[in-house]
């Protein structure tokens, strides 16, 4: 069936062209958001309101997940390390894995599904109920008034959430290994402190979370703004936000890690 082959190749080509097209639209939208950010910086109240919705309301899930991830890391790390008699290095293991990787990455994944999806749904719904059009007719630019504050709030909250996640994780690891199992507290902290470097580990983790914050919120606001103005359109866009930003987080993490830790132990 050569016809079927041709049509499936055409289909693939069509999809590729379509996604490149969409990427172009998204990039233009992203630049537009940056250009129109003046309003949100001048009226910071708008950003504070969104900080509440993206940051404060994500706190619970971040704190609880961080605690559990740290506890699991402590437990698993202890099980393995004690075979080599170096269970005091468990603090190092917990802290390094959290600060370098798990903190920024897992916090960003949680952030995408908690706050990112909410941003997409909210903007998509505003579009579907003509609120954005109404705003435009009232001579107020919806990108400046609705999109930009949400974008900046997301960018600001992400590093804070990642740091809170890491701290809760370290605390969870401490709880399991020191308090429950009984690893020596002094060596737990001192090994951790001598192994974790401020510039290479903590600063790089912080930079990572900033990148993730920009990526997740940019995807979330674009999907919301670009959603077809129907119920199915908005729900589809919400799903796409979570899927796309999760993939982008993991891909970006690889690239950033390769850049940051290249050639260093």
């Amino acid at each position, binding site marked *: 069936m050569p016809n079927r082959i041709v049509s499936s190749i055409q289909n693939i080509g069509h999809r590729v062209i379509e996604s490149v097209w969409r990427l172009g639209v998204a990039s233009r939208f992203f630049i537009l958001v940056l250009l129109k950010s003046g309003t949100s910086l001048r009226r910071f109240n708008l950003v504070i309101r969104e900080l509440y919705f993206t940051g404060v309301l994500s706190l619970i899930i971040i704190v609880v997940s961080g605690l559990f991830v740290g506890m699991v890391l402590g437990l698993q790390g202890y099980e393995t390390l004690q075979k080599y008699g170096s269970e005091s290095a468990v603090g190092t293991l917990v802290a390094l894995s959290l600060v370098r990787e798990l903190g920024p990455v897992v916090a960003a994944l949680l952030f995408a599904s908690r706050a990112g999806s909410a941003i997409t749904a909210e903007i998509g719904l*505003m579009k579907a109920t003509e609120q954005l*059009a*109404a705003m*435009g*007719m009232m*001579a*107020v630019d919806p990108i400046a008034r609705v999109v930009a504050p949400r974008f900046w709030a997301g960018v600001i909250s992400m590093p804070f959430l990642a740091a809170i996640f890491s701290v809760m994780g370290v605390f969870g690891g401490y709880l399991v290994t020191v308090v429950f199992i009984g690893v020596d507290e002094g060596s737990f902290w001192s090994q951790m402190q001598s192994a974790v470097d401020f510039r290479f580990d903590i600063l790089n983790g912080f930079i990572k979370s900033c990148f993730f914050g920009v990526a997740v919120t940019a995807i979330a606001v674009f999907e919301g703004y670009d959603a077809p103005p129907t119920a199915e359109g908005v729900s589809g866009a919400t799903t796409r936000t979570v899927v796309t930003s999760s993939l982008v987080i993991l891909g970006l993490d690889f690239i950033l890690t390769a850049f940051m830790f290249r050639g260093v132990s």
Partner: protein
Amino acid sequence: MTAETLIEVNDLNFSYGARAILKGIQMSMPRGQVVAIMGGSGSGKTTLLKLIGGTIQPTSGYVKFAGEVVHELNRDALFKLRRKMGMLFQFGALFTDLSVFDNVAFQMREHTNLPESMIRDLVLMKLHAVGLRGAHHLMPNELSGGMARRVALARSIALDPMLIMYDEPFTGLDPISLSVIGNLIRRLTDALGMTSIVVTHDVQESLKIVDYVYFIADGVIAAEGTPKEVRESIAPFVHQFVHGEEDGPVPFHYPAQTYKKDLNLEDNFA
């Protein structure tokens, strides 16, 4: 009634790709009148409002608002122009995250530097005009459909515009709310000296309040006239539309091959 023209639509064409939505529309709307644009679903009425508001560009022809050609304005000038326009969307389009008060105050806060105390007085005045002063603290999801539309009306007159466009203001309302909205449109237009364009397919309610009617069908103006002329019109389309007849120039059946052919009654004997 002054004959001064606020909106002039000249040979306006608009098409989505190859599909022509509006074909050579010619209109003239004087200040201080309520003008209705009627037509079946999908006849391009809402598109016409978007062209007047400048959210889409015409394929050819132009819309002139207060002497300015809308689609030739740059972004800043267009935004300036839109401050003189209000638009009431089909279901109100209230900002769901703001209270009734903040919805009405929205434009004042965005476009003026009025002190908060003055904004408060103005908002309550606008809400009083639509009879909802007591509901200023409610959120949009606590309002009924008719109330939401009245709040949206208060919001669109917040900065005393020269023109208000109503997109299907009567859809989905009970008879009481319906006549409340209808009377509000008339009263506010007269009291504030505005011009109103009502896009609707609710014939009976709108004929009671408007000064002039345009009928749009298939992208062209099929008929126009005052309500009296329209009621007495014998033009088949207008007659069908005004009296809500099932069949006429707008056929009941979607174009198809013959019934017999569809049911394979002819082929069997061929």
